């Protein structure tokens, strides 16, 4: 891309970014300023006569007729009507409140101006319509309204006297109208007008105030009524809620009472039925008992009769036997005599033979016993020798620790087989009673170490606890005592544990872990 293109892209990018930024942020940065509120002020209008009066009063001149001739008389401003609902008009300040008498300026007679040009009453007036009748001076009553201390300076008017209006000649409408020169304002007219205006203004203000107060009163009454209505509604709702709760409570209490009564009735019924059933059962039991007794009596009688019969039979049999035996005895006696003589002879011979045989047997038995004793002695001697050898080896091993591995294994002998270990375990387990322990001790694992003598008896002084996992020492101690009892008891019952003598050095020191995680046999 060449330089021109790059510049172009940059400019375009910046412009676009600026536009976007303006779109995003511009609304916040360039907020339209609120326009100033339009101020409105009341402007009062005045009539031609009043203007002239003001003008002449200010400069001492005659009324400015030119203007009076060319400008039609301005209509009076309509009286303001009080409209219901209209926003409240700010009450103008009371014209009398801060009224202050203005001091009359020091009258300085001025030179009368030349009014000859204006005194020609025949000059035509450029007004196509008939000139209105000039205002009549206010009546005598109204003069009383005009305050005595008039604020408007009107020195020039005092001298002037109102001239009577000249008669206006009747003319056609097309002709130029020669309006007569209006009469001079009668004395006190301005004050009277002003006073009337002020009075009208005051009255209007009063009316406005009264209307406002009436409105406020009406509004507050309406608000009060509304509040009262709402309060009444809330009270009614609350009463209704309380009544509902009350009825619910009564209903619940009622239902609870009814349920209780029903239960009571059911219980009474059940107990009455139970009582009846008891009575019936008792009667049945009595009858059964009576029947049983009668049956027993009958059986007893039968037995007695049978025994009597049996006894008589036995007696008869005995007697018959006795007679037969007597006869036989006599026969035997005779035979016996004959035999005796023969037997005596034979017995003498047999006795001699017996004696000889007994002598032989005794000699043989003695020889056998001697042989057995010799064998037993040899066996015991062999066992003793083996034990001695094992002890010697053990001593050698103790003395010669750290010897070569191969040599050591040959001196200790083979280890205990799994069967031998299981046999020993089962023998001790049979006496390990986990039942008579506290719940904590019966869950405690304990390890006990002890030494064994060669005859398979544990050395009671060597028993000791080497560890436990009980939560307390007391639990460990109880578990150890139960384990100790087991080891000693089973050894005592069996006259020593049956362990291979030739492997004594494998089991002369033993550690048993009593771990109550298995299933105990309940006896």
């Amino acid at each position, binding site marked *: 891309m060449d330089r021109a293109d790059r510049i172009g892209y940059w400019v375009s990018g910046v412009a676009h970014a600026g536009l976007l930024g303006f779109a995003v942020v511009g609304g916040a940065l360039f907020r339209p300023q609120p326009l100033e509120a339009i101020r409105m002020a009341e402007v009062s209008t005045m009539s031609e006569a009043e203007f002239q009066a003001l003008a002449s009063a200010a400069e001492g001149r005659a009324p400015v007729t030119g203007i009076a001739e060319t400008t039609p008389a301005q209509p009076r401003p309509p009286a303001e009507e009080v409209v219901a609902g209209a926003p409240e008009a700010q009450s103008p300040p009371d014209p009398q409140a801060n009224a202050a008498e203005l001091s009359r300026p020091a009258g300085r007679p001025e030179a009368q101006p030349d009014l000859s040009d204006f005194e020609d009453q025949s000059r035509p007036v450029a007004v196509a319509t008939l000139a209105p009748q000039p205002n009549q001076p206010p009546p005598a009553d109204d003069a009383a309204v005009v305050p005595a201390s008039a604020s408007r300076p009107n020195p020039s008017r005092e001298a002037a006297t109102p001239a009577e209006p000249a008669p206006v000649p009747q003319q056609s409408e097309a002709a130029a109208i020669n309006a007569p020169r209006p009469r001079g304002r009668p004395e006190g007219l301005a004050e009277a007008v002003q006073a009337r205006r002020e009075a009208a203004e005051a009255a209007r203000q009063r009316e406005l105030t009264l209307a406002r107060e009436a409105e406020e009163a009406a509004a507050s009454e309406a608000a009060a009524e509304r509040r009262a209505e709402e309060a009444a509604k809330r009270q009614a709702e609350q009463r209704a809620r309380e009544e509902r709760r009350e009825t*619910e*409570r009564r209903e*619940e*209490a009622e239902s609870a009472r009814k349920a209780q009564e029903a239960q009571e009735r059911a*219980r*009474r019924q059940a*107990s*009455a*039925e*139970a*009582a009846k*059933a*008891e009575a019936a059962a008792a009667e049945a039991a009595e009858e059964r008992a009576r029947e049983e007794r009668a049956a027993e009596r009958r059986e007893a009688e039968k037995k007695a009769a049978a025994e009597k019969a049996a006894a008589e039979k036995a007696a008869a049999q005995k007697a018959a036997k006795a007679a037969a035996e007597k006869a036989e005895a006599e026969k035997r006696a005779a035979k016996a005599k004959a035999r005796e003589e023969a037997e005596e002879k034979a017995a003498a011979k047999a006795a001699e033979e017996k004696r000889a045989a007994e002598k032989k047997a005794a000699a043989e038995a003695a020889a056998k016993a001697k042989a057995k004793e010799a064998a037993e002695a040899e066996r015991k001697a062999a066992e003793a020798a083996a034990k001695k050898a094992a002890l010697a080896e053990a001593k050698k*091993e103790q003395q010669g*620790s750290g010897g070569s*591995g191969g040599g*050591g*294994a040959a001196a*200790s002998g083979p*280890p205990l087989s799994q069967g031998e*270990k299981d046999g*020993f*375990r089962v023998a001790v*387990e*049979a*006496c390990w*009673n*986990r*039942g*008579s*322990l*506290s*719940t*904590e001790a019966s869950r405690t694992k304990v390890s006990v170490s002890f030494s064994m003598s060669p005859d398979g008896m544990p050395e*009671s002084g060597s028993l000791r606890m080497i560890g436990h996992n009980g939560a307390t020492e007391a639990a460990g*101690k*109880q578990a150890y*005592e139960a384990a*100790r*009892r*087991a080891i*000693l*008891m089973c050894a*005592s*019952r069996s006259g020593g544990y049956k362990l291979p003598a030739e492997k004594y050095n*494998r*089991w002369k*020191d*033993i*550690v*048993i*872990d*009593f*771990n109550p*995680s*298995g*299933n*105990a*046999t309940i*006896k």
Partner: protein
Amino acid sequence: MLRRLFLTSALALAGLGLAAPVLAQDGPLRIEITDGVIEPMPFAIAKFHDEGGAGEYLSQVQNLIAADLTGTGLFREIPASAHIARPEGFESPVSYEDWKAINAQALITGAVRVEGGKVIVKFRLFDVFAGQPLGDGMQFDASTGNWRRAAHKAADQVYARLTGEGPYFDSRVAFVQESGPKDARRKRIGIMDYDGANVKFLTDDSTLVLKPRYAPDGSRLLYTSYASGFPQAMLMDVNSLGVRALGGEQGTMSFSPRFSPDGRWIVYSLEKGGNTDIYQMDAASGAQRALTNSPSIETSPSFSPDGSQIVFESDRSGVPQLYIMSANGGEAKRISFGEGRYGTPVWSPRGDMIAFTRQVGSKFHIGVMRTDGSEEKMLTESFLDEGPSWAPNGRVVMFTRVTPGGNGEPRLHSVDITGRNMRPVKLNGAASDPDWGPLLP
């Protein structure tokens, strides 16, 4: 070099492997035993010696000690007829071999004498197979009228030394005795020794009374009375039998009052305006405040032993279950989630378990669970078991069992928390609502 290193290490490992058996051979033989047996420990109690004036107390004390131990289900007495050895005196040496021969694992020797209106009982305990005494000998004395307490104390010591559990024999149980036909049941409050002996009645049967509950020191009793026509909690002094009603508003009903462990507060359930909540009252001033405020029914409160929590029954979930909250009230945490309904929870004196009544279908159970709701275990099952109460050592639970049928009556039973050794309490007549008092001093 690497190769050399590898070869050297391999040789070293092989040497170790060869040597391992030799090394192992030098250590002791080690085996692990996991099963074992569960059976009552056989013990022998040698004939006690009369050291003066014992008379009939001699055999009574000896028999009571034997009965206490046998009644736990953890011990079995070897009858005297099987004894080989007959010690001549309390101080005579023990011939262990003679006792081993009859398989006695524990031996109790003792002596009794009576002097000045007192019964003095002394004993020693021996581990027969270890051939040594278990602890020191001890002596207890009591008035002749309280000779049972001396025997119970001796049995407590033997039990504690052999099992490691806390003792519980020398304690009293409050209960409600029932009599009369079922439709006109008469009830009165009684107290008895834990084994059913020495029964005394504290109220007459003119008004309906329920659920007596001991104060922690055993000097006062709370119970619910219908004397006013509505259930009202009452407080009685056990010694003077003086009774006063606990403050309650008119038109309210109060149930199941229980003391706090320090005896200062009483918690109970109060029915007011159709709703039942748990309230707490100062036992001295009577000032009360609500601990729960919910549209459900909360009842049966029970303090933990440290007084910081309360377990109670609530049906806020739709079905009665067990909840735990702080003793000052506030949010409650549910701890029971099984099928059926849970109720009447009672905190163990050891603080580790909660006993309760559970109904599943038509069956009732007495059960125990950990305080977090775990390890739930049913100890009994029957037509109607309810209202468990703990022994002072937290090992045994007493409860009411009602037999079915028209002749069914409530009776008191006890069971070990392992679920074994359930047996009835020897009491004449129907009884219910047991509350096991503290161990007597």
